[in-house]
């Protein structure tokens, strides 16, 4: 759970940096999209590097999902009877890990069908023109809603996930706890704000 989560987290950090290039106009953004495919050239063939990344990611997603499923099953089995008197427990981020994870899984499917394959894209999807595709997506109200909700979920998920991963990997300690929580909150905030800034920019016309 921790290792696969951290791989995805690493990817997200790279992803948000790439996304922010949208603010430098279509030229630079589209060129960046192209570079993703020529990474590793000339050692690697066109888009091989990207596929490598995708395979690693897919494996991480699968591992993450499988362990989440196993953990959840085990946890539900370990606590078969609920308390009659329910009380609000841990932080919101902690309590929403399970549902947040499911929301994110669904989002990833939509996100790929929307901006990678274009299957559910609205307004003519064009391969190699990511800038226009992004603007198209965020020109619909539902595109924005889905995306923003998912990015808030990312923030919450990362907030508890990063700190938890540190504990699982045995990095946590009383002394480091503050620092780890600070980093977790920082990462969550940067990712959420970074990702959401794009649809907001499209909506407000900063990016068009």
């Amino acid at each position, binding site marked *: 759970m921790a290792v696969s989560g951290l791989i995805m987290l690493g990817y997200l950090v790279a992803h948000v940096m790439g996304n922010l290039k949208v603010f430098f106009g279509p030229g630079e953004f589209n060129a960046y999209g192209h570079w993703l495919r020529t990474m590793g050239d000339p050692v690697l063939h066109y888009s091989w590097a990207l596929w490598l990344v995708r395979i690693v990611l897919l494996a991480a997603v699968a591992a993450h999902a499988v362990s989440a499923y196993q*953990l959840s099953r*085990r*946890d*539900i*089995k*370990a*606590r*078969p*009877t*609920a*308390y*009659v*008197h*329910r*009380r609000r*427990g*841990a932080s919101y981020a*902690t*309590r929403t*890990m399970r549902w947040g994870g499911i929301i994110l899984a669904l989002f990833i499917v939509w996100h790929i069908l929307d901006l990678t394959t274009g299957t559910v894209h609205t307004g003519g999807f064009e391969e190699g023109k990511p800038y226009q595709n992004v603007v198209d997506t965020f020109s619909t109200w539902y595109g924005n809603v889905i995306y923003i909700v998912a990015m808030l979920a990312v923030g919450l998920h990362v907030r*508890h996930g990063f*700190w*938890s991963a*540190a*504990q*699982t*990997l*045995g*990095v*946590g*300690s*009383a002394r480091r*706890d503050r620092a780890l929580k600070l980093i977790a909150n920082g990462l969550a905030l940067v990712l959420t704000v970074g990702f959401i800034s794009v649809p907001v920019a499209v909506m407000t016309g900063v990016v068009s």
Partner: protein
Amino acid sequence: MKLNLRVWRQKNADAPGDMATYEVDGISSDMSFLEMLDTLNEELILRGEDPVAFDHDCREGICGACSLVINGDAHGPERTTTCQLHMRSFQDGDTIDVEPWRAAAFPVVKDLVVDRSAFDRIIQAGGYISAPTGSAPEAHATPVPKADADFAFEHAECIGCGACVAACPNGSAMLFTSAKINHLNVLPQGAPERETRVLDMVATMDEEGFGGCTLTGECATACPKGIPLPSIAAMNKEWLRATRKSRR
């Protein structure tokens, strides 16, 4: 004080259970929570009803026998054991829900009494230092740095009450298990069995049907002895280290 109690009643392990409502009157704020239940039980006996069964013994907060979930909180609203919780933490006219520890690994024996023998089996798996009587070297032969001794003590304080499991939404016993592992593994005397201890205890913990840890932190919040949450991370570190070493 006059109180409305809703108490989990269950005849035995196999019988179904339910919340029953009782009214208790004449409760003093100086009473402990268990003394309040004593008052109820005295009345029940005289009425010819079955008194409420609950585990308790030292009533000083150290034996770890008492185990009530009060208004959804393991050991109630204060950070202490149920026996050290006093009625001054409640208001006249309050409705109080009293339930047993809930976890698959802690089946209900009767009413509010549960079976916590799984904890004993975790300790039996490796929660000791093998030092047969008579084999000990002079106590000062191995000085222990004060910081390590304090770390060991902080974790050795665990009273094995099971509040961590009761509070955990996953019924996980990580905090209990980690407390003992950290106590023994930091000491030079515990070093020879450091790897087998953590591997065996964690394996037994898993076999006993405790849930996995999702680091909700509920355990450490409920712990009457303040075993800290980073204890779990320290155990994970020990486990990873032992796993790596045992592969070699």
